[in-house]
């Protein structure tokens, strides 16, 4: 054992601690030092030698006070619980609408919309293999689909988070629906999830994207447009989730996400925007792994680093600009196909990490996501898990209950140090876009993914049911979700053809031509023309296709 593990070489170490160390050595088994997923050495005991609390206000601050280590609001969950924002999306718009009405009746206060993978990839339903339609999300191609999907949903009063990558056509459709219903855009609230194109280039090739420089412009135009015309909408959600799911360690995922935040902020400033105008509407989205304390430290450190960046680097003066608002999703890659009900315990642990980490909204995965898109029963258990943690375990009684823990504070400090090191590396590379183009980010993530898998295969990282504690089992014993009825898909395809036949072709052509022209004019806002095209009846595939033609397609910048 490293003799200095407890900092015992310091002269100030009290005799009682030296005594503990002697006794520990006599009875402890295995290595005294273990390592977390971010590669930090973890000691068996933390004491005042590691964290004394003498810089409390500077390093922590009370909840709602800079640098927000203990939480971004004074009252945290005592003021308002985190939002329970479960992902929803399957089948055709009618299916989505029926499911949304069910969950609104159950008291949901926020909606999400996951479109079909064909939508993610920039296509209309009539451009792709029909077997794949609606199997992983809702097929939504135009303004009328959105009207059906949101029928009876009070969009002026309820927030909608849409998985809506660039060029943000779903928001275009929603704004068009709002206009038809006479709801002012200032009442539309929610978040453009999947707006972070950098994360798509480095870690998740699930989404349509324009070539990098085109994508770079569209996201800034989108932020600018929303700040002006949809002021209560969060146009940017910066995603660490993809990177961690792709293999980044928790520290890497947080650091690279903050580096992306820096890139977007600098681009907004270069586009003439004021930090206090756009920063309050930046939000974040993270993966929460089962590594409990590491995740808690990740979130506490991230909050502190972001606050300091906003205040010191960007010169933001409004406290709302300093607050690190984030959504968390429990990690799917931690879930196992073996003994799948064990996943409920994993999700519970992950959710606790997010709650102790101070998140603003939470999605808990269903235990059966290793088999298929969640079944209704598994989705219900995932929501119940959040309710049990809040109501029965009373996790919300005390704000930042682990604040002041020698271990958690020490780990938070170390996490901050590690995050700042990686941010410096990205700064040196010239920012995230340059770092992505050179491949260093993809390599970092790929190396970490492989290193983790090797640890699992070597048994150094135990995964219950996978490389230890196995039992014989039958994979057929668990129900999986049925795919949508192909007849409904065929009906949808007929309706899509009918929509295209009956709309004003001239108006659509004019709107798409204007969209194309806006790409050539730097003073024109591309997203404004996406909204206009959506209103005119242009489809998702047409809008994406036109921009792809003008700005180029973003091929995967991937390597092994």
């Amino acid at each position, binding site marked *: 054992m490293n003799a200095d593990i407890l900092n015992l070489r310091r002269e100030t170490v009290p005799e009682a601690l030296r005594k503990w160390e002697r006794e520990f050595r006599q009875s402890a088994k295995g290595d005294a030092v273990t390592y977390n997923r971010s590669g930090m050495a973890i000691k068996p005991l933390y004491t005042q030698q590691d964290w004394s609390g003498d810089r409390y206000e500077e390093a922590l601050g009370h909840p709602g006070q800079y640098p927000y280590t203990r939480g971004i609001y004074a009252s945290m969950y005592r003021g308002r619980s985190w939002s329970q924002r479960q992902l929803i999306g399957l089948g055709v718009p009618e299916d989505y609408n029926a499911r949304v009405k069910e969950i609104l009746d159950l008291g949901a206060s926020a909606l999400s919309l996951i479109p079909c993978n064909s939508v993610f990839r920039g296509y209309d339903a009539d451009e792709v293999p029909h077997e794949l339609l609606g199997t992983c999300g809702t097929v939504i191609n135009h303004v009328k689909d959105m009207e059906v999907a949101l029928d009876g949903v009070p969009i002026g009063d309820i927030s909608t988070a849409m998985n809506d990558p660039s060029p943000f056509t779903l928001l275009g459709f929603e704004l068009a629906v709002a206009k038809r219903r006479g709801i002012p855009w200032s009442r539309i609230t929610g978040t453009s999830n999947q707006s972070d194109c950098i994360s798509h280039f480095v870690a998740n090739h699930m*989404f349509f994207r324009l070539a990098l420089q085109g994508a770079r412009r569209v996201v800034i135009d989108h932020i600018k447009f929303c700040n002006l015309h949809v002021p209560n909408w969060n146009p940017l959600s910066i995603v660490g989730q993809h990177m961690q799911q792709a293999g980044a360690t928790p520290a890497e995922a947080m650091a690279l996400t903050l580096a992306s935040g820096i890139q977007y902020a600098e681009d907004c400033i270069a586009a003439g925007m004021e930090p206090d105008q756009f920063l309050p509407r930046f939000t974040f989205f993270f993966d929460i792994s089962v590594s409990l304390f590491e995740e808690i430290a990740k979130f506490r450190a991230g909050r502190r680093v972001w606050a300091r960046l906003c205040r010191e680097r960007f010169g933001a003066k409004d406290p709302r600009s300093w607050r690190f608002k984030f959504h968390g999703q429990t990690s799917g890659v931690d879930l196992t196909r073996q003994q799948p009900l064990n996943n409920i315990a994993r999700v519970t642990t992950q959710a606790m990490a997010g709650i102790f980490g101070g998140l603003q909204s939470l999605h808990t995965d269903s235990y059966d996501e290793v*088999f298929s898109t969640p079944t209704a029963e598994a989705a219900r258990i995932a929501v119940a898990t959040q309710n049990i943690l809040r109501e029965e375990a009373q996790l919300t009684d005390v704000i930042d209950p682990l604040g002041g823990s020698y271990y958690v504070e020490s780990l938070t400090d170390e996490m901050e140090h590690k995050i700042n090191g990686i941010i410096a590396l990205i700064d040196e590379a010239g920012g995230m876009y340059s770092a992505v183009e050179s491949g260093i980010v993809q390599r970092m993530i790929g190396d970490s993914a492989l290193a983790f898998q090797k640890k699992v295969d070597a048994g150094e990282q135990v995964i219950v049911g996978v490389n230890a504690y196995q039992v014989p089992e039958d994979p057929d014993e668990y129900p999986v979700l049925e795919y949508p009825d192909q007849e409904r898909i065929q009906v949808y395809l007929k309706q899509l053809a009918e929509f295209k036949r009956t709309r004003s072709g001239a108006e659509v052509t004019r709107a798409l031509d204007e969209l194309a022209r806006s790409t050539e004019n730097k003073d024109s806002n591309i997203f404004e023309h996406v909204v206009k095209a959506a209103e005119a009846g242009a489809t998702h595939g047409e809008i994406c296709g036109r921009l792809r033609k003008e700005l180029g397609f973003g091929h995967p910048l991937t390597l092994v």
Partner: protein
Amino acid sequence: MVLRPPRVIVTKIGFDGHDRGSRVISATLRDAGMEVIYTPPWQEIATVVKLATEEDADVIGISSLATDHLIIPQLMAALKEADLSDVQVIVGGIVPAKDEAALLKAGVARVFHPGAALDDIVTDVITLTAKRRQLQGESV
């Protein structure tokens, strides 16, 4: 007698782009001494068939997370059409048990589920390579 290194295409067809699995498998097979032809996600079935011909692939590994396995029977048909029935196709990822049977029936050699050990995958690729070369009438 030494086995000429297996030639393996690792790819994704369909819409999804979660590529952690395909990248980890590529790196693993390469570390095991195989010749790996890795492609980014989003490949067309026709592109994979063309690549299999050009690269003289022994094995094609398809990674699927989000239901893209539903079009693998189309890939199998296209391989047969191109007279490449001897090429061994393996699938890894989220494949519900009820769909696995359909894939095996369509001619897929093996389906790997989450939790599969890298060593087992390497062993199977070697076995399947030997099988493919036997089918080709080549001495292994």
